[in-house]
């Protein structure tokens, strides 16, 4: 009798009935009497100094309740990963004197109806002095490039270094004795998650002084804790209700709508809804970062990789969000699932005047895999080898040391490739079928 109750069985989803009857309650399906609507005045340009904001006409719109500016936000500068010790705080809940990307929030308008809020937003007059902007990761690192951050260069600093670095063996010496040098440049585009449900939160003041916040965040405690920090209120005054997410894919782990909705509820004493329009979801919410990855490999004539240098640039956009973490994951994985004795990796988190980028499905690693696997095919082509062979020859085994000094455990690349070959009907030579990921014989590594 198997002790397993769930593994190996097909069980109905607990939320299935709700989904097919339309009774599942998503964030904006909650409606409260007297609920106000919050909309945001956004920067129409990529980079500018804010000279002035004129609210006079907006305030005259029927249904206008109040505006919120940076002066209303108790702790206006934050960084989402500050919760796990990432520094510095650098993103503004509402802009102070500069905007660094097109769509950056400047003023929040709270009104009796969504229509009134949009009307008031349209009547806010911005006096902006446009500044030169930078949109390319390598241009952003050249001397004289417009500086996006407040600390004087355009990279996230990792323990005092402008990039996340991995050093393993002696790459230059290995390049010198390699039979072939194979180089590649790989570019990927930003990708919007485009969830069918847009990002939204509703904050409701309760009789006991607390605020109930309905949100479709993928990271409830990131949202709760950052809101607590931004609004300088104890966490026990915030009751966050989440769990139902109409598509996330990483696009709803940032903390964007909850702090403003909650602040507006505090200032007005009424429920406040802040939901992104589809346009905001597409043009303002974080995307996957665009990446540029350079790979230089030293390869022997038999296909063995003896050295790899990777220089990567991720476009973080104007602020960090989760991208510095992506680069750390990237640096740990940029050598790929291969045993390479000499590796050097420089991974830069670069700031530009694009909309901020953040988490999305395997962020930092998916793009490394794309570059590495195209590079492996390129090596096979250059050397006239079977692309399968190049991968089997170089596959890592249990017990190998990875460049970031992590011992390989539970490697399955060889077995996965064997299974994939079977599934696509590709016949592998007997020597590759006989391989396993178990530790190499003594002295062979």
């Amino acid at each position, binding site marked *: 009798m198997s002790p397993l109750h769930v593994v190996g069985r097909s069980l109905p989803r607990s939320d299935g009935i709700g989904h097919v009857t*339309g009774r599942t309650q998503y964030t904006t*399906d909650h409606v409260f009497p007297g609920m106000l609507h919050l909309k945001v005045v956004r920067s129409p340009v990529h980079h500018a100094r804010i000279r002035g904001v004129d609210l006079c006409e907006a305030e005259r719109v029927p249904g206008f309740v109040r505006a919120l500016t940076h002066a209303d936000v108790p702790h206006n500068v934050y960084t989402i990963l500050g919760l796990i010790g990432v520094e510095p705080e650098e993103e503004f809940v509402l802009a102070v004197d500069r905007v660094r990307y097109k769509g950056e929030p400047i003023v929040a308008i709270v009104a009796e109806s969504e229509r009134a809020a949009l009307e008031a937003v349209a009547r806010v007059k911005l006096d902006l002095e446009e500044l030169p902007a930078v949109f390319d990761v390598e241009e952003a690192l050249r001397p004289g490039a417009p500086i996006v951050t407040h600390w004087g260069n355009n990279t996230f600093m990792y323990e005092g270094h402008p990039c996340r670095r991995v050093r393993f063996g002696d790459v230059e010496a290995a390049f010198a004795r390699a039979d072939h040098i194979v180089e590649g440049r790989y570019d990927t585009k930003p990708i919007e998650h485009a969830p069918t449900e847009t990002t939204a939160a509703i904050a409701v003041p309760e009789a006991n002084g607390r605020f109930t916040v309905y949100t479709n965040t993928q990271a409830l405690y990131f949202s709760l804790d950052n809101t607590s920090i931004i609004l300088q209120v104890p966490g026990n005054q915030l009751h966050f209700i989440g769990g139902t997410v109409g598509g996330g894919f990483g696009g709803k782990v940032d903390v964007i709508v909850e702090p403003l909705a909650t602040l507006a509820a505090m200032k007005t004493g009424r429920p406040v809804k802040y939901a992104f329009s589809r346009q905001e979801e597409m043009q303002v919410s974080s995307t996957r970062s665009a990446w540029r990855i350079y790979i230089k490999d030293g390869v022997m004539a038999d296909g063995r990789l003896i050295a790899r240098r990777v220089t990567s640039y991720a476009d973080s956009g104007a602020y960090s969000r989760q991208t510095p973490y992506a680069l750390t994951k990237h640096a740990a994985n940029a050598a790929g699932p291969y045993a390479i004795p000499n590796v050097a990796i420089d991974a830069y988190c670069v700031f530009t005047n694009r909309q901020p980028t953040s988490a999305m499905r395997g962020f930092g690693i998916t793009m490394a895999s794309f570059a590495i696997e195209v590079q492996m095919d390129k090596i096979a082509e250059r050397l006239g080898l079977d692309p399968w062979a190049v991968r089997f020859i170089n596959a890592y085994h249990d017990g190998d040391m990875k460049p970031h000094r992590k011992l390989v455990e539970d490697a399955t690349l060889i077995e996965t490739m064997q299974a994939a070959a079977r599934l696509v009907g590709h016949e592998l030579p007997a020597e590759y079928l006989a391989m396993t990921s178990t530790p190499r014989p003594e002295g062979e590594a």
Partner: protein
Amino acid sequence: MSSSIVTFTLGDREVDVMVTPMTTLQTVLRYQLGQTAVKEGCRQGGCGSCTVLVEGEPMLSCLLPVEEVAGRHVRTVETDTPTDGVSPLQQAFLDGGAFQCGYCTPGMLMTATALLERDPHPTHEAILEAMAGNVCRCTGYTPIVAAVEAAGERRG
């Protein structure tokens, strides 16, 4: 602009709503009549999540001024769900795992309902054609199309 009263049939009951001109059917259904199965993925006619049936025809309620349905018959997932369980189409969605986040599901169900009422045994191609305006970002569509096919087959 002054408000007016619009009367239409929602499922099996007649409803009167007071609206300002150009209020959409989506807004009325969601925020006046509590039909939150009518979703609001884009509110610009691009995603199909707000699809309802007007006289049996699938319509994007986000683009439809409510005055357009005066005197007409409107159906939503709420009005179409049997009181004692789920419809064969809903059951096929459950059986086939034809959703992940569930946000597009009500719109998918309404579009598929209209198709199956018009063509009880649609071909694969007819399903693709009918469902082309409903966006799903989770499933890749395959299980949704399969569920509609299965519902058609179950009708015998």
